């Protein structure tokens, strides 16, 4: 089973016993107010060759569990109780030297964010080679190099020998993640811990990398501990599921069983909120939302994406048909400096045409670099188009200046991806929401204050929040503030640029529901930009699929999901996790 057990490795204690047994693990973080418990009595086992997934929202303790196993807790984190028995040895009390022996050699680790987990100042080859040397996989300059090439090729990196000398910034996110997987698997470890290894990547890249990871762990017989916030992904990739909530395991068992028959209310909420599963269910129910019966057990706290999607679809059907936005032959060319005074043209948006009916949602879908965000910037007139035309409510926007431009801004407002970056940390929430009103000279102080409260009510935030600052709010609350600010001027059109991508599934579901409700109440028109087709299924009426600056497919959501015309669209659809899972719809 094991391809290459390095010489001198400690043999597994009891043959047939579990590879990893975590018993009553407790982890605390020291803060100014004393110890804060992050893990509270976590116990589970991983057998030889088994794959286990830990699922939960951020802050549930899933990453902390992963870090505690290899004793690499960040900052002031300490294991305060329990055992981590790996091959019969307790890693929680092991010496530093013992841990160094186990890490890399017996337990591989693939971290979450490929952008920050490679040292930017060393070449990729250097970082792979030092792993090989540290774990004694090869000696001698030439042998180490040969092994490094082998490791990277195995991880699916083309022309590895040429790319060894390149630096991380010269690699794409997917390529870097392959390097990290290669490093994690370099010594054919007994256990591989993968901490959200693909959450920063495009769906199609995610699928390719996970397929690859799966086949690698299978051939070597490595056990896999997979950490993710997406239940669909977890169920697709692991035999066993562990659901964590607030530092505790609330439910554990075989993946399919949990998905089909979740017992704990939290698991039920997670299932209801997962866009990948919801989109599958909508699809399985037969093309149209209206035919989806309300037979499912209502989840405990009531955020069901399908219910939200249904309500929205009904409202939209009643809406009148007239175009709010018409984009024709839109092209944007950027000049990229290529040294000296020369520059090369890069066509980010290439002859794009689409229109959005009033009161409906059109989704612009594509992978990173497909030009979808550039379209948003052009529409908002934050960038000027190279050619083509954009009409908003019948007015061409290209030549708008001054006062006219201001009135366009009033009719069309953006919400951006990063709820941490799009709010000024030094301005309180009330003033942030009131700022557009002030800029456009709407009302006086008192009436603006009234409007701020009204908006906070609309996005279901308590009024006291007006006096708080962004750092005191959670990610979901901040995104609600960003939406409230966008709605302040009573716009007709809202451009949502990856507005829910940075959020946890449960928060994401809440925001999607909020957006659907607001659309019904206020008759808003949405341009919804995302890389996640699963979300599109529940929010959009029409879909434009973008690839390399062009729209390759445009149709109604039902058509795109039911009978995709382009191979690229099919690839994107296939990449939504949870394809092979039978759910009790």
């Amino acid at each position, binding site marked *: 089973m094991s391809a290459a057990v390095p010489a001198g490795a400690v043999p597994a204690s009891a043959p047939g016993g579990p590879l990893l047994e975590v018993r009553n693990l407790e982890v605390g973080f020291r803060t100014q107010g004393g110890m804060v418990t992050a893990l509270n009595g976590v116990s589970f086992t991983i057998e030889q060759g088994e794959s286990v997934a830990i699922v939960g929202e951020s802050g549930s303790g899933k990453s902390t569990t992963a870090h505690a196993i290899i004793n690499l807790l960040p900052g002031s984190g300490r294991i305060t109780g329990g055992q981590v028995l790996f091959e019969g040895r307790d890693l929680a009390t092991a010496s530093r030297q013992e841990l*160094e022996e186990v890490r*890399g050699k017996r337990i591989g680790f693939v*971290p979450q964010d490929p952008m920050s*987990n490679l040292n930017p*100042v060393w070449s990729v080859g250097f970082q792979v080679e*030092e792993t090989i040397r*540290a774990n004694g996989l090869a000696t001698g300059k030439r042998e180490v190099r040969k092994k490094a090439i082998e490791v990277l090729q195995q991880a699916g990196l083309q022309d590895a020998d040429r790319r060894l000398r390149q630096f991380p910034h010269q690699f794409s996110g997917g390529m870097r993640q392959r390097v990290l997987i290669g490093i994690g698997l370099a010594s054919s470890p007994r256990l591989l811990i993968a901490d959200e290894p693909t959450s920063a990547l495009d769906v199609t890249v995610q699928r390719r990398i996970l397929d690859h990871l799966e086949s690698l762990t299978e051939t070597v017989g490595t056990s896999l501990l997979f950490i993710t916030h997406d239940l669909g992904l977890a169920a697709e990739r692991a035999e066993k599921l562990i659901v964590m909530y607030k530092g505790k395991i609330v439910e554990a068992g075989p993946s399919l069983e949990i998905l089909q028959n979740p017992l704990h209310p939290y698991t039920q909420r997670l299932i209801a909120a997962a866009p990948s599963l919801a989109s599958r269910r909508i699809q399985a129910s037969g093309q149209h939302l209206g035919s989806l019966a309300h037979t499912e057990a209502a989840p405990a706290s009531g955020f069901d994406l399908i219910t939200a999607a249904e309500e929205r679809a009904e409202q939209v059907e009643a809406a009148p048909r007239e175009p709010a936005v018409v984009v024709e032959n839109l092209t944007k060319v950027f000049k990229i400096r290529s040294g000296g005074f020369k520059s090369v043209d890069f066509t980010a948006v290439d002859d794009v045409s689409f229109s959005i009916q009033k009161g409906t949602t059109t989704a612009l879908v594509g992978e990173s670099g497909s030009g979808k965000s550039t379209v948003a910037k052009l529409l908002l007139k934050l960038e000027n188009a190279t050619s083509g035309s954009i009409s908003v409510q019948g007015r061409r926007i290209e030549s708008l200046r001054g006062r006219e431009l201001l009135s366009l801004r009033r009719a069309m407002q953006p919400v951006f991806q990063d709820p941490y970056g799009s709010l000024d940390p030094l301005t309180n929430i009330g003033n942030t929401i009131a700022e557009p009103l002030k800029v456009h000279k709407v009302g006086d102080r008192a009436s603006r204050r009234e409007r701020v409260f009204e908006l906070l009510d609309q996005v279901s935030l308590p009024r006291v929040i007006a006096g708080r600052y962004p750092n005191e709010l959670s990610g979901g609350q901040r995104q609600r503030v960003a939406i409230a600010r966008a709605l302040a001027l009573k716009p007709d059109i809202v451009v949502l640029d990856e507005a829910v991508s940075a959020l946890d599934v449960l928060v994401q579901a809440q925001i999607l529901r909020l957006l659907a409700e607001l659309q019904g109440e206020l008759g808003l028109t949405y341009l919804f930009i995302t890389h996640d087709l699963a979300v599109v299924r529940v929010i959009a009426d029409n879909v434009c699929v973008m690839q390399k600056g062009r729209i390759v497919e445009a149709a109604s959501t039902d058509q795109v999901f039911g009978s995709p015309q382009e191979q690229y669209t099919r690839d994107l659809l296939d990449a939504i996790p949870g394809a092979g899972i039978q759910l009790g719809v």
Partner: protein
Amino acid sequence: MAYYIVRRLLQAIPVLIGTTFLIYFMVFAMPGNPLLTLFGDRTPPPALLERLEQQYLLDQPFIIQYLNYLGNVVTGNFGISFSGQSVNDILARTFPVTLRLAFLAITIEMVIALSVGLISGLRKGGIFDASALVVSLLLISLPIFVLCFIAQFFFAVQLGWFSPTVGADASIPKLILPAIVLALFVVATAIRLTRASVIETSTADFVRTAYSKGLGRRRVVPVHILRNSLIPVTTQLGADFGLLIVGATVTEGIFNVPGVGNTLYQAIIRGERPTVVSFVTVMVLLYLIVNILIDLIYAVLDPRIRYVK
């Protein structure tokens, strides 16, 4: 790369013209006839004064004097000092001494800053870190001449490890004590900066990944923590170079080092336009070159930075 260096050097030209103009103007605006100070209490014969004024173009308007000076500088002639020496000669005699002092000081600064900063950063909040903080605060708050006198008194006079003054023969061993004082003058900020960037790098994701690969502390600390922390510290060293030249003026006076600072100080007192302006010009030029060098080192340390070919 060559293109980048040439462009940076071309950018230096307007800077040089601007600084020489400012300095020349300020020296020009100083009250009193500089020639009179040369004669001290005695009154020179008017004929001699007139001849000297003509020789040094002191009877001409400011702009003529300045343009004439600039024209000479372009041809590599920095003029003649009031004592009749060629300024080129003075420059050639004094700059090597001060450069030796400055680079010695920079080296000492780097060694202290990196070692103290690294240990402080790795053991944040420990006894070493706390004492380093107190000592650096003390060093920041002491004026440099106090540092000079303390070092001179204890290490040279009391302990006799060094000679208290340098004198005409400014060899490296003799320059060590003034260099240490100069280094201490600027080292505090560099320590704090190293410490801060070591702390920041220690929590970076790639450091945790390095440990997860099975690397030990002995490898992770120098290769993944220290190396990355060098990047901001290097920039600071470039800025420190300017500060060192300022500090050198005082230090050279107290330790009697025959360098730039000492000579410049004398020239300012005497209002010697050609000498003062020439010294400042060369200093500005040096400062620019050092900072271009720092930028090049920066690119070596951080491969993400690539200057346009």
